[in-house]
């Protein structure tokens, strides 16, 4: 029951954070509210016994990626005037919400048809660093290496792109 | 070594062309390379011709499995039908390097590639392979036309490219359809041409596939009303390209009909033959009529070529051995006559800087050898007995009469229509008073005269003594009309020709 209570809390926080992300005008506010979502998601991972992912979510996502984003936002020193004028924001949000509805409903329908399983917290043998690590380096070695190459490539790309002298008009 | 001669004939020019394109060779070297390679190909083809045994079946077969899961193979072979188209290409193409000596490197390189690709399309015994060569064939033409053509070359290039690609895509769809139905009927993947003949195709889909093939070939031939790319392309293309297009490439369209459509879609073909034959006849008359009022001699020759192709196509549609054999003979005759006429037109254009008929005149007095050669090629193209043009035309008309009297009579009018525009043009270019432009017309040089001589002699020899040539064709054409293939296969080649259609009393 405790777990269910936690789930409801985290879920509510995650949704609220996401709504905030969509609605806040300034990206900084959006980023902060997104961090809320990420952290609550980390909590949910913990509830799902994914210990490693829980940690990674906090360290990599909420820690590294978000700080990168926030850093860039601050780096660009965005003034309110730089922000796009979005007078019809709510209207757009409403319209896109309607458009998205069918997708969500379809997915919901699919989920509804699934059989119920327990998600009770499991013991030590699941989702720890050891288990995931063994799997990762035994069965997933090549995809793992490819992902590392991907990271390298994106690193080089980012350096080249961001380092370009702006040929401003 | 000789068993791979076909591959050598195909890939030697292609490789040489690609290397030339990649290398920084000068135009002299390019021309020399082209000349050597095409002469080497000619020698190999002659050897091939001499060793050809006229069994009626594919000879010099090469077979290597290529894409096993789909049954696609790299298989080559020639029979009496393809041999002559192959020979026409091999014999005629070296001329270009002799006649046009001052073109760009890319010109010669593309010429080599197109030669190889055409040989490939002619020899391919697998439909996928054929399709590949068929498409490769178009590329060099695209470049030669687009880069080295006349002032209005770009629209012409666009038109020919889009037209042919549209046609070939239809063909690709039809090839896939054939492969799939072969798999459905025999539970085995294959795209080999000879196996397709066993297919049992009926229904609307078969008719659609039939027309997909026919349209692809009709564009290439070109059959009326798919000919509208031809006048522009032939006129704007450099002389060698026009020559390649008219002398060999158009023939591959006809060849495709004989090779794919007739054996595979026998029912559909029999059903629509009369329609196609009318298209052939109408095209012949239509283009022949259009030719007479042309002011540009290259354009006139273009229309005349289209007109002749109508007759050649008609021969295929008549479904009897005389007409079919006549068609194949006419293919060679047309390649040697009209093809050479296009080369002569190129020479005329180069030396007088004009393509307008009215600007010329009196060239016969200035250049008797040139006029003599031109006259012989022209007479062959109007089908004068004693030249190669007559044999084919006569057999086509003969076969057409048997097929359908009305079509036969209309086909016969080619005798009149052809002679009208040709004489009219000959009169104004070669006879009459010498005009200012033709005043300084240079006679063919000694080398040029010597180079054209074999072709001119071939025109005459093929008209006077066609039997040796025909005896290589007839076994293959007889097979097309033979009842079950196994019966004929056991017979010696000499007897095969007697197994034509039974004689019908009119």
């Amino acid at each position, binding site marked *: 029951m405790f777990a269910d209570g936690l789930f409801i809390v985290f879920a509510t926080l995650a949704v609220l954070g996401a709504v905030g992300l969509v609605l806040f005008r300034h990206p900084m506010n959006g980023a902060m509210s997104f961090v809320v979502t990420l952290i609550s998601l980390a909590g949910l991972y913990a509830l799902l016994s994914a210990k490693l992912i829980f940690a990674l979510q906090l360290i990599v996502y909420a820690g590294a990626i978000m700080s990168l984003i926030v850093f860039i936002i601050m780096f660009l020193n965005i003034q309110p005037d730089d922000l796009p004028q979005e007078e019809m924001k709510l209207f757009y949000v409403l319209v896109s919400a309607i458009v998205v509805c069918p997708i969500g409903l379809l997915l919901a329908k699919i989920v509804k048809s699934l059989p119920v399983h327990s998600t009770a917290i499991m013991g030590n043998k699941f989702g720890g660093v050891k288990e995931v690590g063994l799997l990762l380096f035994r069965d997933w070695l090549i995809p793992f290496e490819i992902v590392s190459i991907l990271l390298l490539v994106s690193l080089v790309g980012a350096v080249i792109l961001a380092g370009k002298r702006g040929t401003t008009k | 070594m000789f068993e791979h001669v076909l591959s050598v004939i195909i890939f030697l020019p292609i490789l040489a062309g690609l290397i030339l394109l990649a290398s920084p060779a000068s135009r002299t070297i390019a021309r020399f390379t082209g000349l050597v390679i095409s002469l080497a190909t000619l020698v190999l083809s002659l050897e091939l011709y001499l060793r050809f045994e006229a069994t009626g079946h594919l000879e010099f077969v090469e077979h290597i499995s290529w894409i096993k899961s789909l049954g696609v193979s790299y298989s080559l072979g020639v029979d009496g039908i393809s041999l002559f188209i192959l020979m026409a290409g091999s014999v005629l193409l070296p001329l270009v390097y002799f006649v046009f000596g001052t073109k760009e490197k890319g010109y010669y390189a593309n010429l080599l590639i197109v030669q190889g690709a055409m040989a490939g399309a002619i020899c391919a015994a697998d439909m996928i392979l054929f399709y590949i060569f068929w498409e490769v064939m178009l590329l060099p033409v695209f470049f030669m036309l687009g880069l080295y053509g006349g002032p209005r070359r770009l629209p012409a290039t666009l038109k020919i490219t889009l037209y042919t690609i549209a046609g070939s895509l239809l063909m690709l769809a039809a090839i896939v359809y054939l492969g799939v139905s072969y798999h459905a009927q025999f539970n085995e993947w294959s795209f080999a041409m000879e196996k397709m003949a066993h297919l049992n195709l009926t229904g609307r889909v078969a008719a659609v596939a039939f027309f997909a093939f026919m349209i692809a070939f009709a564009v290439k031939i070109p059959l009326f009303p798919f000919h509208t*790319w031809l006048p522009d392309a032939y006129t704007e293309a450099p002389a060698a390209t026009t020559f390649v297009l008219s002398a060999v490439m158009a023939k591959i369209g006809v060849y495709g009909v004989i090779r794919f459509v007739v054996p595979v879609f026998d029912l559909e073909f029999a059903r629509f033959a009369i329609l196609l034959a009318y298209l052939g006849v109408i095209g012949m008359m239509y283009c022949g009529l259009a030719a007479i009022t042309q002011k540009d001699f290259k354009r006139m020759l273009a229309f005349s070529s289209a007109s002749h192709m109508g007759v050649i196509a008609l021969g295929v549609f008549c479904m009897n051995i005389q007409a079919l054999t006549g068609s194949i003979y006419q293919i060679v005759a047309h390649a040697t006559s009209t093809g050479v006429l296009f080369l002569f037109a190129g020479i005329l254009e180069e030396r007088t800087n004009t393509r307008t008929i009215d600007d010329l005149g009196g060239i016969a007095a200035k250049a008797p050898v040139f006029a003599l050669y031109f006259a012989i090629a022209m007479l062959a193209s109007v089908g004068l007995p004693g030249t190669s043009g007559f044999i084919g035309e006569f057999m086509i008309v003969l076969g057409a009469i048997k097929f359908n009297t009305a079509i036969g009579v209309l086909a016969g009018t080619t005798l009149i229509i052809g002679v009208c525009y040709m004489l009219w043009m000959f009169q104004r270019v070669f006879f009459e008073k010498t005009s200012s432009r033709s005043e300084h017309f240079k006679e063919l040089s000694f080398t040029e005269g010597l180079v054209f001589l074999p072709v001119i002699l071939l025109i005459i020899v093929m008209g006077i003594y066609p039997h040796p040539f025909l005896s290589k064709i007839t076994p293959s054409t007889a097979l097309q009309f033979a009842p079950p293939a196994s019966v004929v296969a056991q017979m010696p080649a000499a007897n095969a020709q007697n197994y034509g259609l039974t004689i019908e009393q009119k």
Partner: protein
Amino acid sequence: MEQCANYLGLIPLFPLLGAVFIGLLHVFTCKRTALPEKVYGILACVGPVLAFVLALKVFVALKGLAPEARFLSYKAFTWFSVGELHIDMGFLADPLSCLMLLFVTFIGSLIHIYSIGYMGGDKNYGKFFAYMNLFLGSMLVLVLGNGPVVMFVGWEGVGLCSYLLISFYSEDRSNVLAGNKAFIVNRVGDLGFVLGMSFLFWGIGAHGFDYLSLKANVHHLEPAVALTVCLLLFVGATGKSAQIPLYVWLPDAMAGPTPVSALIHAATMVTAGVYMVARFSFLYAGVELAGNIVAWIGILTALLAAIFGMFQEDIKKVLAYSTVSQLGYMFAGVGVAAYSAGIFHVFTHAFFKALLFLGAGSVIYALHHEQNIWKMGGLKKKMPKTYITMVIGALALAGCPPFSGFFSKDEILYSALATGHFGIWAIGVLVAGMTAYYTFRMIFVVFHGEPRDHHAYEHATDAPSVMTVPLIILAIGALCAGLLNLPGIFGGDQVVSHWLAPSLTEHHPHGGVFLEILAIAASVVAFVIGIKIAYTKFGHGAQEPFFSGFADFAYHKFYVDELYDRIIVQPYKAIGSSIWKVIEPNVTDAPVKGVSRLYMVLGTAFKVFQVGYVRVYALYMVLGLGIMSLLLSQSLN
């Protein structure tokens, strides 16, 4: 005998080789120092003379055979063979082709010799003889060919030579146009020939497509097909032999050098049609309707051409129309199934018409290429040899007994009468009178009276002997050739007819002595009347008449050329230009242009959706996903 058969291939080969040799010699030397004319002259005469000698040998050999087995055949090689179509390049000498062979080579040789003089000084001397040899070779192929297809080779070959020789003076546009006209009109006829051959082949050709096999199988041919074949072949003949409606090219063909007119357009080539009909006598004999059509077209052509001939002012045109007219007679002859009479007329006509043309050539040569008879006159004194020979020719043409033309023409008219074709006979007699009139009109105007152009007259003189000797030989022929086929009524035994009998399928009509005398009397009366009128009008000199009314109409040849131009040539050109100016861009190319336009329109239409904002593209994606989801969620239920 076998040996002799082998000569057959050589007969056409000699002139053909001569043509190639002379042609090459000419082509390679004409731009540098031209060879002396003598070289060409001698070379040119070798071929025809050798051919003539061989022809004599063949004749002797044939004569040695029994009449019913009188044929020699020689197969050079298999020409082409596809399925049931099997054609040999073979030659056949039977009495019919042997007769043709003899006079073609004989007259051909004479005209070659004559040309040595006539063409002197021409810069294309070599070319001329190459063409002439080529012509003779083709003509011999035509005559000797053992089947219709081989004949067709010669048939087209002579047509080509005719074209080349008519446009020989090619700098002048009108000459080339005349050549084109001849070739194209001949091609119309050839179309008929080819179609006729094709029908014949699918009828009975599968068992061999040479004359002997065809003759043996002719009874298998269905009557309707036989009629079609006969008529189509006759279309070929009307083209080559200048009959209605395809006669228009022959008068224009006089643009060529005069020996050409003599050899090709009078003596040999134009009679090929008659020869062909006689060759197919086994076919025509079975189809009476076809024969009647041939005869009527022939005699109407004879009449029409005679009318035109009476009003011409060009000496060669007069002769040209007389040729057309005489050809009409020949067709009337073969049409009423009197094949030997028709061929006999071909034979005699070759002598006297060649003679007349060569004579006219001498006159033209003497007057420096003046052809208008109203600028001549009184040449009798200046050119006595030419005058005498030409009068002999004219008498033969007009049908004066005992000249050759009389016998052959009379034979035709008698056959028409005896087979019951009174209409043809009556027109024939009328034409005979007209022939006499226009022939002697020409003779009187040219040779009698006072000279009209004194300058030219002063310089006129008989031609050198290289030209007059052939004239004299031909004159002897014109005088005596008729005696070869002397009809029974004059005590002869029709040597030529009997000689030809094995080759032809004909039944000699037996009309009785009365009809024979009637025919002879009518011909003689017509001749006398014709010559009398000509004498009274032109015998003592006359001025160029002014034509009006019917005469003017006839002088303009009934405006047939203009009519053909209006109803055939102009529409043809109009269709041609409308095709590529109107139909090509607007009709046949329209679908292609339509497709490209369709793509343009569609492209412009879809451009609206390309707003350029990434999020809008994302919206499209979501919309698409949404639609798919809706569809999927429906199918899930």
